[in-house]
């Protein structure tokens, strides 16, 4: 299950949704809005997404995780819009018979989400300035493009279409 939402994420309900008597392990990851980043103070984050593609990519990474590990249930929710300090921006919940797989899959899901799902955050710094966060992109432009010289599907999700 994957979902984008403008509402606060009910991570307890999400966790309940992956529990089952087939599983001995549940791992939940929450991304939360941290106040300090590299010594700068944030007051809020704005998240936006390219919705249809983000949902499609989330479904792909869930499918890839299920190919790699024997998972029971998977639930991923990403919040969009204005988030205040401490708010939950993303929740990933995974259940599996044994714990190693649940840990590895949850880690894979959030790592891959951050690399490949078209969602962006904008910092609203305490000093009143705002800044889109685009990893690898300097204010002067970028040195190299991860897609220009590579196959259409980024490496992290290539396995999703074997």
């Amino acid at each position, binding site marked *: 299950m994957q979902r984008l939402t403008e509402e606060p994420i009910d991570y307890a309900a999400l966790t309940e949704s992956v529990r089952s008597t087939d599983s001995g392990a549940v791992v939940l990851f929450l991304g939360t809005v941290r106040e300090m980043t590299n010594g700068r103070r944030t007051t809020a984050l704005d998240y936006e997404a390219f919705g249809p*593609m983000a949902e499609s990519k989330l479904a792909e990474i869930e499918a890839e995780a299920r190919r790699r590990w024997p998972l029971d249930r998977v639930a991923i929710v990403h919040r969009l819009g204005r988030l205040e300090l401490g708010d939950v921006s993303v929740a990933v919940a995974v259940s599996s018979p044994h714990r190693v797989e649940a840990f590895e899959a949850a880690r894979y899901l959030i790592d891959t*989400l951050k690399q490949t799902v078209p969602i*962006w955050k904008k910092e609203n710094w305490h000093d009143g300035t705002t800044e889109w966060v*685009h990893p690898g992109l300097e204010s002067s*432009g970028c040195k190299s493009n991860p897609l220009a010289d590579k196959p259409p599907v980024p490496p992290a999700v290539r396995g999703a279409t074997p």
Partner: protein
Amino acid sequence: MKLDVRLFARARDAAGAECVTVELPAGARVADLRAALAVRSPNLRALVPCLLVAVGTEYADDRVLLSPNAEVACFPPVSGG
């Protein structure tokens, strides 16, 4: 052919528009789209080399051929999570 290109995040802010239309010859590829975008929106020029391009809901590299009804989106590196 005319293609509507959706823009997101810093690319949208730089272009001052959520969508820009570019004119491309038949048989154009993603690389041609990049070049056309830099001409169409000079404020995007610095960003263009590092934009990710999606056709439909799939990432597309510079060699991908564009059809007249392609749904195209361009955006800088993602930062969800």
